[in-house]
């Protein structure tokens, strides 16, 4: 292990370029540690986002040596064995400055995919009883831990080709709600996620599944949405 890392960091907006920093190499150092060192010790004007530092909040995702990753849980030893790091903002989102992207489009698509829960009961009704081993509950569980970091969105080729595509995270969210039997907007949701800007645009490249730091498979959820939409279309409910 050498004593220093050579770190190329994106500076400026879309028209910016890389700036190189030398950062001391430490044991058990994360990529977020490296960025924080640069901002605190070398250049306080560096813009980046983080909050929890423990893989819960989904704020700190960046492009690390060409791949989208959550930086707080990514060890330097894992991604920069040769001592070189290249840090850029997430792909497929407008760059605000340096490592910060504007994630509005990403979250607007969650809303477009009907990612909101639509309750069917009031507080006066008894609790819904959902069996933990029911197929729907198991499907919802598989996708529910999404932290909205945008790694899947930045890794998706279809998002790159078709800017109107809803993307893996929004579709994964929709799939968890399709499996929520308490939800009352099922037909509207399937209408929102079906079609050529929705689940049917997915090419099953599996980049989202490969890169998701929470080991969720949005691809599986998207396949589930395709099946659900097909059944609804054949029934005439879509």
């Amino acid at each position, binding site marked *: 292990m050498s004593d220093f890392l050579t770190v190329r960091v994106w500076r400026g907006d879309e028209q910016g370029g890389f700036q190189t920093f030398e950062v001391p190499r430490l044991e058990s150092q994360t990529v977020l540690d490296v960025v924080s060192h640069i901002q605190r010790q070398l250049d306080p004007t560096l813009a980046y986002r983080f909050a929890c530092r423990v893989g819960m909040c989904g704020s700190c995702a960046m492009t690390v040596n060409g791949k989208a990753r959550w930086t707080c849980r990514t060890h330097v030893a894992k991604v920069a064995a040769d001592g070189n790091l290249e840090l850029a903002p997430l792909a497929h989102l407008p760059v605000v400055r340096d490592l910060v992207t504007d994630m509005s489009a990403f979250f607007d698509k969650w809303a477009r995919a009907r990612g909101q829960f639509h309750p069917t009961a009031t507080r006066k009704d008894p609790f819904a009883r959902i069996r933990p081993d029911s197929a729907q509950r198991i499907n919802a569980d598989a996708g529910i831990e999404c932290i909205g970091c945008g790694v899947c969105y930045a890794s998706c080729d279809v998002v790159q080709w078709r800017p109107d595509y809803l993307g893996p995270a929004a579709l994964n969210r929709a799939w968890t709600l399709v499996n929520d039997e308490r939800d009352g907007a099922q037909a509207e949701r399937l*209408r929102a996620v079906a079609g*050529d800007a929705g689940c*049917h645009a997915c090419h099953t490249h599996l980049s989202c599944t490969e890169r998701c730091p929470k080991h969720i498979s949005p691809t599986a959820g998207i396949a589930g949405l395709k099946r659900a939409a097909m059944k609804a*279309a054949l029934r*005439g409910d*879509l």
Partner: protein
Amino acid sequence: MNTRTEVRLWAAQRISAMVLGVCVFVHLITIMVAMRGGLSAAEILERTQGNWAWFVFYVVFVAAVVVHAPIGLRTIIEEWLGWRGTWLDILLVVLAAALGLWGLRAVWAVFA
């Protein structure tokens, strides 16, 4: 095109792909068997002329192509060229009709 039709087209393309999977497999095996000991028009016609089983098989094959190819091509054109709308749909209906016509003409030529 409305969402329901889009999804039905998607389903039709998947189902026709399953049919094509079987048809292409049978077709390839037939080619391998037919090629043994040389290939001649007379030998092919001897197998297909008046044979209803091969006639039905190749009509199904053509039907699957007619459904499958234009829907897939539509998606490729939309993604690669950004064309969409009624004119594209009309173009692909014409393509489907042409594929059906050419395919059935070929089937009839080796059956009759």
